[in-house]
């Protein structure tokens, strides 16, 4: 595979964009600019390789459906921010890390192992055994930020975190 090395300008443009979006939604990028630039470079390399911003610290399969949960921001970011004050690769950090009250520590992988993932059924599906007859609309959950929407179909873009419709799951 031949990678196209992103220019420092491209890296900086995306870093700024991600930083602005993060702040708007109450998230923070890692304040270590050199470190963050390296991660953003990885996102751009993965975009060139696969067509999407797959997590630079995880192995992408190259199959979009299999990699959906690790497209940045990943499905595991918010839980890891709560538990470890940073996401898995540490592109996003908590308030405590930003203010210097807390140091970064290694974040264990929360994503199921390759073998566990093979056993999981993919796609939108209603939870088994739920009675939906009393509800007017199904409820869709954004797997990135937890936003819930009661409507026939998930929104095209999550109004909270901007994740695409494909990141929603049927919740109720």
């Amino acid at each position: 595979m031949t990678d196209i090395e992103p220019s420092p300008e491209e890296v900086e443009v995306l870093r700024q964009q991600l930083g602005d979006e993060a702040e708007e939604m109450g998230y923070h990028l890692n304040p270590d600019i050199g470190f963050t630039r390296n991660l953003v470079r990885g996102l751009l390399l993965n975009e060139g390789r696969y067509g999407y911003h797959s997590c630079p610290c995880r192995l992408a399969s190259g199959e979009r459906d299999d990699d959906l949960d690790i497209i940045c921001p990943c499905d595991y970011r918010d839980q890891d921010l709560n538990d470890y004050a940073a996401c898995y690769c540490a592109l996003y950090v908590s308030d405590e890390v930003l203010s210097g009250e807390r140091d970064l520590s290694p974040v264990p992988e929360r994503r199921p192992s390759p073998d566990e993932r093979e056993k999981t059924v993919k796609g939108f599906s209603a939870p088994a055994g739920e009675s939906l007859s009393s509800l007017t609309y199904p409820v869709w959950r954004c797997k990135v930020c937890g936003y819930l929407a009661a409507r026939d179909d998930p929104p095209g873009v999550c109004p909270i975190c901007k994740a695409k419709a494909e990141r929603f799951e049927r919740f109720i």
Partner: protein
Amino acid sequence: MVLERVGGEDRGKITLYALSTCVWCNKTKKLLADLGVEYSYVYVDLLKGEDRKSALDELKQHNPKATFPTTVIDDGKCIIGFKEKEIKEALRL
């Protein structure tokens, strides 16, 4: 599996499973280089097909979650993630 070898002091067999895009993997590489030890590494994301599968099968024997970086010392001790203190201790440095 094709491993890249980096020369240095012999502190046992050190194999680093890494991704070329991963910042923590590159921190681990730099640590091993700074320690001046001989080690081998493979960027699994740059492998395709059978090469990738065999590298992953080998990695899973040490780390079933197959995460990066994974540092394997003397085919036994396995350190998952960039853990400077643990790596130094395992190498008695």
